[in-house]
């Protein structure tokens, strides 16, 4: 695996995770859907689409998707495994440091188990 593949791999993980975190930030500004009926959900969708953070998220996820395609054109499919597994850990760090979510030791342990489990499932 050379430098370019490493950059693609980093982009898959970082842009993908960044995209989800930006989407979460947009939703935080929109506020919680309190009543689960079509009206409030549609209003949430209309509002979130007016948030710059939402479109930042969409752009980042698109970059991540095309980086994955570029990575898979150069490297075997098994290289997508660390990208998927790493995104759980990177996403939790991002939620902690960028969004200020409190990650308790139990949640961290759960994330690490999920990360290890996803690796095994993708390899097996």
């Amino acid at each position, binding site marked *: 695996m050379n430098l370019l593949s490493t950059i693609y791999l980093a982009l898959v993980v970082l842009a993908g995770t960044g995209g989800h975190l930006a989407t*979460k930030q947009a939703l935080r500004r929109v506020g919680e*859907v309190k009543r689960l009926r*079509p009206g409030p959900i549609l209003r949430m*969708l209309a509002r979130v689409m007016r948030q710059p953070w939402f479109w930042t998220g969409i752009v980042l996820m698109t970059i991540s998707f095309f980086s994955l395609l570029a990575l898979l054109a150069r490297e075997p499919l098994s290289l997508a495994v660390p990208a998927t597994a790493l995104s759980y850990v990177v996403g939790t760090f991002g939620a902690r440091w960028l969004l200020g*979510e409190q*990650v308790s030791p139990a949640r961290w342990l*759960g994330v690490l*188990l999920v990360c290890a489990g996803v690796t095994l499932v993708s390899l*097996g």
Partner: protein
Amino acid sequence: MPMPMRTAFPHASRPVRLRLRTYAFILALVMFSSVGNLFLSLAMKRIGDPHAWTATALFEHLLRILSSGNIWIGIAFQLLFFVCYLTVLSWADFSFVKPSMAIGYALVTLLGALVLGEPVSLLRWFGVALICSGVALVARTDVRTTPS
């Protein structure tokens, strides 16, 4: 789906209702996503690779993809997934939702083994067990840790 959910847990207290609601949404969105992927993969397996890497061949390939019914069923399920994902993220922590969604790997493996009779390696079962225990741990933490 939103209509019956409204009165799904009428007697539960608000934090409990929020938690049950979150579980229900994560399960639903994971199923929508898996079913969506199934239809997309069915469609693409039938269509196969483009005949050549020229502009005309690629355009014909795109037309073949867009005229497949299964593609649109797949896209509809993916849209449903995304709406549920945005809805649950409107109240729940990202660090709660993201690892919990890994339960999809367990569901897909179980369905593959039970419904399609696919062989599942021991390594994969071990991975599924790790994922289930991880999700069980995450699911016990607070759904939301930031102020509204």
